[in-house]
């Protein structure tokens, strides 16, 4: 690692101020950033740790019944505290990485990084969540903008994520066996006004909604409703662990399993 300083603000305002320096970078749980720093692939002058900010911690139920998760809340806490309020989200959070990683990694860190194989983007997009930052509210449909790309501006901090709670939801993950990220992960959520299907791990552009499946499932919420559908392999990731054709195939299989488990 190159040398840098670490600041540990205790308020969002102090964090935003510290991040206004152009060589400053936010540090969530660090589970992706620290390995990156070890490879000397990033050279921040200052890391601004967000995990000490009390107002960004914890899970609560919002005025409209949505599950509100503080941006610096770790995966283990989300898994534990949403077990009854949003089991689909709890299941996803409780299966990210491994137990030690879940005790450090944060929802805000995951969404800000937007790794194409990360789990949380599928939950946020699949739930139609709202990403709350220090300056604004961003709908998940507008937030994810491709590989490691998001709507966040420089220095903008995810302070909270609000998940509307569906009637039923399930995340089905086919793990990449080394990294334990998703080779393909599909989050299916059934709301009164429709079904959302969000896919991670598969596309070269990161998380996406499989709209054909959403339409079919809105009409008939059963795995069988997917029978006639297929996912094109074009634009799917191809790597050591699976071809684009294989990933395209898995999208359908995992979607069916997620529906069946709802």
């Amino acid at each position, binding site marked *: 690692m190159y040398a840098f300083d670490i600041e540990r603000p205790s308020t969002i305002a102090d964090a935003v101020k510290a991040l206004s320096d152009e060589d400053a970078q936010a540090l969530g749980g660090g589970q992706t950033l620290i390995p990156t720093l070890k490879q*000397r692939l990033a050279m921040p002058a200052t890391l601004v740790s967000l995990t000490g900010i009390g107002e960004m911690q914890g899970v609560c139920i919002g005025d409209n019944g949505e599950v509100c998760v503080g941006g610096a809340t770790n995966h283990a806490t989300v898994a534990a505290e949403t077990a009854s309020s949003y089991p689909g989200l709890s299941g996803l959070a409780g299966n990210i990485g491994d137990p030690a990683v879940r005790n450090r990694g944060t929802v805000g860190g995951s969404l800000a990084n937007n790794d194409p194989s990360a789990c949380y983007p599928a939950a946020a997009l699949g739930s139609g969540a709202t990403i709350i930052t220090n300056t604004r509210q961003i709908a998940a449909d507008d937030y994810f903008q491709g590989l490691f790309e998001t709507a966040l501006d420089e220095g903008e901090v995810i302070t909270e994520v609000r998940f509307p709670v569906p009637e039923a939801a399930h995340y089905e993950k086919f793990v990449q066996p080394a990294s334990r990220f998703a080779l393909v992960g599909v989050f299916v959520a059934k709301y009164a006004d429709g079904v959302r299907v969000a896919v991670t791990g598969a596309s070269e552009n990161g998380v996406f909604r499989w709209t054909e499946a959403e339409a079919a499932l809105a009409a008939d919420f059963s795995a069988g409703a997917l029978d006639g559908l297929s996912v094109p392999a074009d634009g799917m990731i191809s790597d*050591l*662990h699976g071809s684009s054709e294989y990933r395209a195939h898995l999208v359908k299989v995992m979607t069916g399993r997620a529906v069946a488990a709802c």
Partner: protein
Amino acid sequence: MPKDGGIGASTTRREDVRFLTGKGNYTADINTFGQAAAIFVRATVANGVIKSIDTSAAAEMPGVLAIFTGEDFVDVGGNPAGWLINSRDGEPMKEPKRPVLAHGKVRHVGDAYAAVIAETEQQARDAAEEVIADIEELPAIIDMAAALAGDAYVHDEIATNQCFDWGWIEDNRAATDEAIKNAPHVTTLELVNNRLVPNAMEPRASIGTYDAAGDSYLLQTTSQNPHLTRLLISAFVMGIPENKLTVIAPDVGGGFGSKIYHYGEEALVLAAAKKVGRPVKWVADRTESFLTDAHGRDHVTKIELACEKDGTFIAFRTETLANVGAYLSNFSTATPTFLHGTLMAGNYTVPNVYVNLKAVFTNTAPVDAYRGAGRPEATYSIERVIDMAARELGIDPVEIRRKNFIKPEQYPFGTAAGLEYDSGNYDALMDKMEAMVDRKAFEERRKQSEANGKMRGLGINAYVEACGIAPSNLVGVLGSRVGLYDAATVRVNATGNLSVMVGAHSHGQGHETVFPQIVGEMLGIDPQSVDIVHGDTSKIPFGMGTYGSRSLAVCGSAVVRATEKIIAKAKKIAAHMLEAAADDLDFTDGQFTVKGTDKSVGFGDVALKAYIPHEFPIEDIEPGLEETAFYDPANFTYPSGAYACEVEVDPDTGKVTIERFTACDDFGNVMNPMIVSGQVQGGVVQGIGQALLENTTYNADGQLLSASYMDYVMPRADDLPFIAVDHSDGTPCTHNPLGAKGCGEGGAIGSPPTVVNAVIDALQSGGKNVTHIDMPLTPARVWAAMNNA
């Protein structure tokens, strides 16, 4: 029943206490006053000409003490191959120099061409980025067939990428060809034995220290065999006299072959320590381990099995390309030849065997012995093609093997591949395995799996291997440049407790517990009064180290021989004390007794007498009680096994789940069943890793795509079931005093074909016409095979 703590007891390990409390002493844990840090500057291209290296900016960086490049080592020797292989035409193999640091050319990604020594690791790392090398990238030579066909060379000075073209046994070639030509049935299989990275959990590390007053060196390093490392550095690489170099391998966090070899980093820290006058420490990170530890396997093989219609084997014939990587690692030429071709008759009476193997240089990390070393490759080829032949001929896979097994009454049995097996009972192993598996109930289990939407398969396998490496006379004839005996010194202290110095190094095998079990049993004393000293060339007579499942069979035998000498001398002393003739004494339970009398003296009193030799017959007996033995085995040992694996395959995703695994092994006499079971379970899981998970992938440019645990799939707890093992009632080895056969590698040798046979069985039972899939059988590969079938 074994005696408490003696031979055959599942004594818990005494070394565990320090590991369980964080008190292990691994090389990276050692910090010495005044130490400096070394960081290596490594090639980022697979093949390139070093035009220039500018170290001037780096030298000005804070904390930098010295910088080395390949130029600094042109006058010292190279790291040699330990085994000379001659090609079929009699020409000796090609042996390009392997320098301490790359000079002239870099030959694989990770090849070190400079090293920076600085006050701290971070300073060395910062300065390493300022070493400016102008390296002209050349096309990478990666694919073995293309390497042989092309006219660009990894080593220009040898003008070929073929290290050797070996035939085994060349005189049998014509007869084997003829037998195959005339055979009623021939099964042919082309397969890849996938390249693996050993991945001991402790990355390599080395600390060099130089004492100017005595002009002597100390190397603390992650080694499976410190004496061999000393010998290589002294005799070949650095020319440091052996008496001026101490090599210590402290606690070592696993080896699996990768820490047998001497690596350039060890020479570098010694040279650096002398130059900067301070201890110099280097600790690899995991990426360096992936890029530079010797890899394993990497064969491409075509095997043919000729047989009668009733399944009687007539001949095995193979053609193999074996990757040796960019440089010859120390055992790299022995591994694909004499540890592979000689096993190509398997457990069978097959009369004809011929092996052709070409070793190929490529722009990849060196390839050498990894757990099993050649025997897994042989077993995989044989046992996969047998399974395929059985299926083609409609013969049960157990029956076709039984039909061709060497029978118990046929030992010693000289195989068509040139080895003489001393003992075994393969039918008995198969009987035991079938009973443990409850094969009759398998169809019921298969139906249950099918009801759950899964395809279920049962794979079986038989293996035999040659280990307890190795008889020096034999390996000398075959080209080995070293002897492969081992040594032990048994020192009885005056107060009756013992220090036993052994040449084998323990890095997980449990020597500190097992060797005292043997000595305690032989002397009739509490094993807790015996301590083992290992891993330090200044304390131990000599040793060839730990690999090839040799610790017990070879070094353990040396311990037995030295202890026998102790008993013989103690008996003479006791005879003097009891005023009797030595021949009239019995030695039982630690007591020397005059036969037919109640006159006796205990071992402890004899020890004391040896060191306080009052009224001692000094003309006949020297004072003291310490004996050394070197033991050179008369033959390899030949462990064998019958394995079974049951898998479920998910037809929608191709994912394979291991439902059951059963390993029945014959390791001869077993000293500590608990430890042996652990060896088998660990080996089996490494084999499962090879079969289902692990792959080492270079792209066409020679970049290692699987260079971290983000992409190289290590087996994890949730990939596996419990592993059922049995190694009772073995057939003793006939030629070593313990009757023991090596147990370290059988699991890794026997398991890969078992798993693959099971998956093919599952797919066939599910109506998929898939006859072979190359390892690892990842979900993506299985899915692709199913959908192309």
